[in-house]
């Protein structure tokens, strides 16, 4: 017995990124003028245009408004516990290295409760594409102060204005070792899509901060209007400065937002370093995990670690 869900009306012609969305769950829960949907559209477009094997793309999200994105994307989607999207994604990636694992979650989830995992995954240069949608607040739970809430901004737990210094996320990511760091707003749709496309083609810990309006909480609690007003604010106050030092891109309340690509380098990923080191140490005896993963199959199947390992033993 299943739960009956009201199906939306069928449309004759469908939206171009419909193949990447779970259309049986659209319209989604995000508020009018929320920017998360735009970021989802951009990443769906990027996946389509880079022509990656979509079967091998997994999306992992945490808890929060942005965390609901996994539920709307037609990929192997994992809606995990609060803050633990990154280690979950690490397990996915290390369990089956051929997967393109993306983490799509919010500021509170990824750098609040998930802060420790964020910095370590960046340090290890784990091969993950991390999209952090930053709306400067904990939206889903009613507008509490977040690690990214600008100084003096109001929230439900800082009703007289925030007096805690917020994170400068590109600086955090870059200093921990991310190899691709960029920030755009949900207004910069083409540049954001281009950043996704670039990051999809890279490897290592790629971090993209997508600033998006939160109408119902951040804008309302700070009397900034709706998300449309925030979008106009991004339009007037976003400055594009590629390659600038990430230390200088912190965001003040209703202050300029510096966007651009700040870090784009290549460094060996966690898996590459592991493979290289063990190959050196063990030579032929090292059995790396095959791209399709460590799943033990019936011995009659070829091409897996079990088959490879036993055939290697037979040869020696």
């Amino acid at each position, binding site marked *: 017995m299943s739960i009956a869900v009201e199906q*939306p*009306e069928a*449309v*004759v*012609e469908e*939206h*171009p*990124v*419909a193949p990447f*969305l779970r259309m049986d769950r*659209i*319209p*989604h829960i*995000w*508020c*009018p*003028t*929320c*920017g*998360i*949907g*735009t970021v989802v*559209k*951009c990443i769906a*477009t990027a996946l389509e245009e880079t022509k990656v094997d979509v079967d091998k793309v997994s999306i992992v999200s945490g808890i929060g408004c942005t965390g609901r994105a996994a539920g709307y994307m037609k990929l192997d989607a994992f809606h995990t516990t609060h803050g633990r999207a990154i280690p979950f994604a690490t397990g996915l990636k290390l369990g089956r290295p051929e997967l393109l694992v993306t983490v799509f979650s919010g500021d509170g989830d990824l750098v609040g409760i998930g802060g420790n995992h964020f910095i370590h995954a960046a340090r290890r240069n784990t091969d993950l594409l991390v999209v952090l949608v930053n709306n400067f607040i904990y939206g889903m739970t009613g507008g509490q102060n977040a690690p990214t809430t600008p100084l003096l901004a109001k929230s439900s737990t800082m009703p007289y204005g925030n007096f805690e210094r917020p994170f400068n996320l590109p600086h955090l990511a870059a200093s921990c070792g991310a190899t691709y760091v960029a920030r755009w707003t*949900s*207004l910069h*749709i*083409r540049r954001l*899509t281009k950043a996704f496309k670039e990051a999809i083609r890279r490897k290592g810990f790629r971090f993209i901060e997508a600033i998006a309006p939160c109408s119902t909480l951040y804008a309302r609690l700070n009397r900034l209007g*709706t*998300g*449309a007003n925030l*979008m*106009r604010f991004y339009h007037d106050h976003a400055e594009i400065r590629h390659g600038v030092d990430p230390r200088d891109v912190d965001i003040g309340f209703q202050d300029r937002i510096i966007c651009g690509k700040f870090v784009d380098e290549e460094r060996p990923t966690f898996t590459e370093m592991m493979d290289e080191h063990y190959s050196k140490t063990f030579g032929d005896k090292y059995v790396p995990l095959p791209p399709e993963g460590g799943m033990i199959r019936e011995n009659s199947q070829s091409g897996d670690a079990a088959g490879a390992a036993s055939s290697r033993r037979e040869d020696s």
Partner: protein
Amino acid sequence: MKYWRKPLDFDQVKIPRGEVRIIADRCKGCGFCVEYCPKDVLEMSEEFNRKGYHPPKVVKHGECVNCNLCEMICPDFAIFSVPLDDEEPEAEPGESLEQSAAASGPPVAAQQKEDGN
């Protein structure tokens, strides 16, 4: 469109033409498509969709250049544009979509909000 001076490659560059498709029942009335369309093709309508929001409507027929900006910026997957065929004669400034469409045939059926007609 009006040019300050005619560009040197005016004869080689073809301005694309497109048509806006609106999936009205998904729209949440945010207004981004209306605000950011570079050709001001859209306006918020007075109609209500199933959820009580005002979806947009096309007011400047024939002006859409298929830039896809509405499609990219809509957070609700409620609007997109499709390119129009090249076989039709170019709509000269002042000629409406109906006049050029009458020459080439009606557009593909979809939920399309039209101004008044």
